């Protein structure tokens, strides 16, 4: 019996059937996004070599949840900074001139640095997790190597029966190339 590699399920889900359109122009891509949304498509993927506000506005997606990762990471870092300095000071007290063993002002420096460190690392994890979850949700969608160079692309998942309709829509908005996946 062949064992299933659990990583395959995460990183290589079976290819999703659908239509891939290659666009040379930003405004054509934005038009196609608008038409697709009017036509009731919600789960299509847009490829672009650079982030563009036009595409973002056309897709009108909610703000990325990465900001919650940053916030929670930052607060956790600040708390860890406060905890290690105070706990470690009282665990090994170095008493100098009768001054307080746990003294907050110098510890603010550590708390600040830990806020930044944990906030930044949590942001990275937030980007990785969210991008990975999105990729899992979408499955293996068709891609073209020109999408990181100078072309925009839209992949619309659909059953073969409806593919003709989607192809016509993409061509109608100015796709340079349309193919089924």
């Amino acid at each position: 019996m062949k064992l299933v590699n659990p990583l395959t399920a995460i990183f290589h889900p079976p290819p999703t059937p659908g239509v891939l359109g290659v666009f040379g122009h930003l405004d054509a891509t934005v038009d196609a996004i608008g038409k697709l949304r009017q036509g009731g498509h919600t789960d299509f993927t847009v490829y672009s070599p650079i982030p563009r506000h036009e595409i973002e506005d056309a897709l009108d997606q909610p703000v990325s949840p990465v900001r919650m990762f940053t916030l929670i990471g930052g607060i956790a870092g600040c708390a860890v900074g406060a905890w290690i300095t105070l706990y470690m000071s009282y665990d090994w007290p170095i008493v100098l001139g009768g001054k307080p063993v746990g003294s907050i002002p110098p510890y603010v420096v550590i708390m600040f640095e830990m806020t930044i460190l944990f906030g930044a690392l949590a942001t990275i994890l937030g980007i990785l997790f969210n991008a990975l979850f999105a990729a899992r949700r979408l499955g293996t969608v068709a891609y073209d190597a020109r999408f990181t160079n100078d072309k925009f692309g839209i992949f619309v998942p659909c059953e073969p029966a409806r593919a003709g309709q989607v192809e016509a829509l993409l061509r109608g908005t100015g796709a340079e190339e349309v193919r089924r996946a």
Partner: protein
Amino acid sequence: MPETATAPARGTRVTYDFVTRAIARTLGNPGKGYFALLASAVALLAVGIGCLLMLLRYGLGLAGYSHPVYWAVYITCFVFWVGIAHSGTLISAILFLFRSGWRTAVYRTAEAMTVFAVMTAGLFPLIHIGRQWYFYWLIPYPNERGLWPNFKSPLIWDEFAIGTYFTVSTVFLIMGLIPDIAAARDVVSGWRKRLYAITSLGWRGTNEQWRHYTRGYLYLAALATPLVLSVHSVVSWDFAMAIVPGWHATIFAPYFVAGAIYSGVAMVITLLVPIRKLFHLEELITVHHFENLAKLCLLTGMIVAYAYCVEFFTAWFGGHPAERAAFWYRAFGPFWWASWTMIICNAFLPQLLWFKPIRTSILALFVISIFVNIGMWFERFVIIVVSLAGEPYERFANATYNPTWADWGIMAGSFGWFFMWFLLFVKNFPAVSISEVKEVLPAPTRGKAVHA
């Protein structure tokens, strides 16, 4: 005209495809000049390693320390390299938040410089501690003696600041690289394609990826901005928290931060001039970029010059005899040559940048930037060594200090180490941001089609 910041000479048109290919081309064989530079960097590093092995075998006595000068060239180099790092984060994070279009062509180089400069800086405290094999005692880890570090010590703050800075600037560099590695992956062939396929972490530029990426990048920039200001402030408190005259000053934090950015911008110019030539990036990194860097240099240089004036003025006006004596010693004592090198290179020479013909002459900027680097190294030498040597509280101290071959050798090694990493980076990863350079170009639209 920031929108056309990356436009080449009239007559040619910069398209997305041109940008990808021009930058991907740098990943090929860079020619003999590159390998000559790399070989000299490795040779310098070998000298440094040789000296370091001697130092490990025979101890810090080789380093020319004598009472009361126990912080010398190693700490000078530490502060120098941390300072170099700062302009990278300024250009990549602070100018990102300010939406400066011109930063896109130079920020990757500056950011890589940051990471390698912090890597270099981090070695010096470890070399300086003497018993280098106990460096991990700095880290708060549970141990059988129940000891913890003293968090009231600025040196522990420094460790946290440098550690955080290194981590954050590294992840920031890697984040910026991911879309560019993916772009390179899709145009190169051979073993590089496999390398980039792994290191691009599956980047395809989907709307979901960009949605999380652009947000995350914004927050990383927002976190890196206060971090960069804090790191050199904390480094300055290593000195300012002590009572040594010449160190114990409240101006130290902003003075150090301005000096750090100043030296870093100068180092960016020093690095970009040869990189631009070796990798034929003249169309992407233009005189306009150099002029903007020169303006940054002038601004921060003026702040540094102001800080020099204020330091001397406060010493005189404050009226404290020890403080006055320390500054008299600094300007006219046995180390007058170091102080005047610092003042001439950092405060007087950059005044030439007021003139546009000098700001737009790449050769002139290269020469000035090297003098600024020298001046900024001497600034740290003056602050550290000269303040300690002239310490008026130590009446019976033997206040001579001469750096030895162990000091110079390890310092040379640090330059070799830094340049080796930098040169390896620019050959193997996109040294100019592909996606961000495209962002400042007009997007291709149906109305006015832009063809390669």
